[in-house]
């Protein structure tokens, strides 16, 4: 289960209605379904990395921009600044945790057919075009 704090992190990573071409946010793409499978089937280190990433983003990232945690208490621009600071930290484990968060978020977001259509991913349509 994703907590309110977890959702705040993930919504900040891929927000809704902020980009003209990609108006869908992560939670508009059925991420909960992907997450349920991930939580059940992913390797233990992968799952633990994701949970630690969420915790670090919630409780540590705001401190990097001198704001009090948790992340969820702040507005979206502040949350983005906090996560950006985490992603650019000189402390490599922080960067690696952001990479894990982005990977799991991407597994859901990049699989959504509407996102794929928006970016021009052809998928099986390409195979069919070549065959014909």
């Amino acid at each position: 289960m994703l907590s309110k704090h977890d959702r705040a992190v993930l919504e900040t990573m891929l927000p809704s209605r902020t980009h003209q071409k990609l108006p869908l946010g992560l939670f508009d793409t059925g991420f909960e379904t992907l997450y349920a499978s991930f939580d059940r089937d992913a390797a233990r280190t992968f799952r633990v990395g994701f949970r630690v990433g969420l915790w670090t983003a919630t409780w540590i990232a705001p401190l990097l921009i001198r704001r009090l945690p948790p992340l969820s208490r702040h507005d979206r621009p502040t949350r983005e600044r906090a996560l950006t600071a985490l992603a650019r930290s000189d402390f490599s484990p922080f960067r690696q945790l952001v990479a894990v968060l982005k990977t799991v978020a991407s597994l859901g977001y990049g699989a959504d057919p509407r996102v794929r259509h928006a970016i021009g991913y052809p998928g099986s349509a390409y195979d069919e075009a070549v065959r014909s």
Partner: protein
Amino acid sequence: MIGQIIHGADFAAEHGTETFDFVIIGSGAAGATAARVLVDTGATVAIVEEGSQVTSSDFTDTVWPALRDLYRGTGAQVTRGRGAMGVVQGRCLGGSTVVNSAIAWRMPETVWQSWETEYGLAEALPYAEIVQRWAQIDRELSVQPTAPEVWGGNNVLLEKAAKVLGVLAGPTSRYTAGCLGSARCQLGCPNRAKRSMAETYLPYAVESGATIITNARAERVLSDRSRASGVLIRASERRESGRRGRTLTIHARKGVVVAASAVQTPGILARSGLRSPHLGKHFQAHPGALVAGVFDREVSIWNGATQGYNVYQYLDDARCKIETLSLPPEILFARLPGVGSRWLEEIAHSNYLATLAIVLRAHAEGAVRERRWFGGTDIRYDLESRDISNLRKGLRFACELLFAAGAREVLTGVHGLPERLTSPDQLRSIEAGPDDAACYSLTTSHLFGTARMSPDPAGGVVDADFAAHRLPGLYVVDSSVFPTNLGVNPQHTIMAIAMYGAERIAEMNS
């Protein structure tokens, strides 16, 4: 006589203990090739595979199901050390050959010469014999340069750059027949065009009578009177039939052939009681980094062969090779910079990116060992400073190629360097980049050296006949036996050496 592919739980329920001439552990490039040779000698063969049987109808064009069903550790296996490097391995029938880009490169002769002079392997692995096996595999697996018709935007741009800079380059030779250029090699070929082991040598072995037991982990090799006599396997549960997992013994009359990869093989040997100061040591790899060029027009990396063109100008002076690499959207997105609205902006333009991989022949040696408490394998690996220096050279060359192809910007993906270079004038900054391996985002799928071959028992784990020095009847034929890495994609050499090794094993046991 037709053999079978059977789930371990079903095998346990229907057959119980059985005896074969040879039991092969692993169904990837090395194990399948060994099976292909051994069945031709008339021997009875069982292949034990930890992963599941998958077919092209199981493959999807999304990444998570592939990570879950086809990859070891759901694709999240990493090294421990200064900077975590991803270690990508297949875990299904056919092993990594199902999910790699099917690249066929012959080992450079200079590498073999170092094996001859530094490791005394001239007689164990005669170059002329390996060349013959390469030629046979070329014929049997339809090795051919990637046809221009399926290059797609990414490969076309690298060819253009190579021409502009006048560097040694060419279309990548691959095991394919009828490739449509779907750019989905890492998810399993949806068109059965990739000549993976699951499409070639494994069906051949089954048609010749081999039994393939899937979903069965090799716990250890058993010995009887100081000779390998079988394998204790643990079959996993089969939910569909309600059959529970259990352990059982598969007996081997003539030998046990281990081909489980340079990460898993040493664990199996150690669990089997084999002791050697070299076991699990000398782990080598080809760490890979990714750079992306931003173009003013659509590149469409998702149309065309996943890896269809490569530049090999820098193999000697920087020990690196530069290849095109198309990534599925999910993996590409995760590598793009930014979070929130900035990340979305990068994602929105991902179809304007060309992506190149830098594959480094690193000097560094690491070690693999079984984790005592939490299961799995611990891979310890740290790049040397000379490796990082070569990696920076490779990154610079790759960025130069992208600019030569017309990129407006290049995304370096290195912490401590500018996130994006906007002019070739900035290329020099790369060579002054960070010395810390943790600043680079690295992945590898080329793994070597953890049960190295040496005619001298004090110098390696297996002898010149691929047999374990301290346990007759136990053979190793995968890239664990390589004394060094290669600098080029290893599958072709793994197969050629496994083929030669299996022939030797058959001769010795005839």
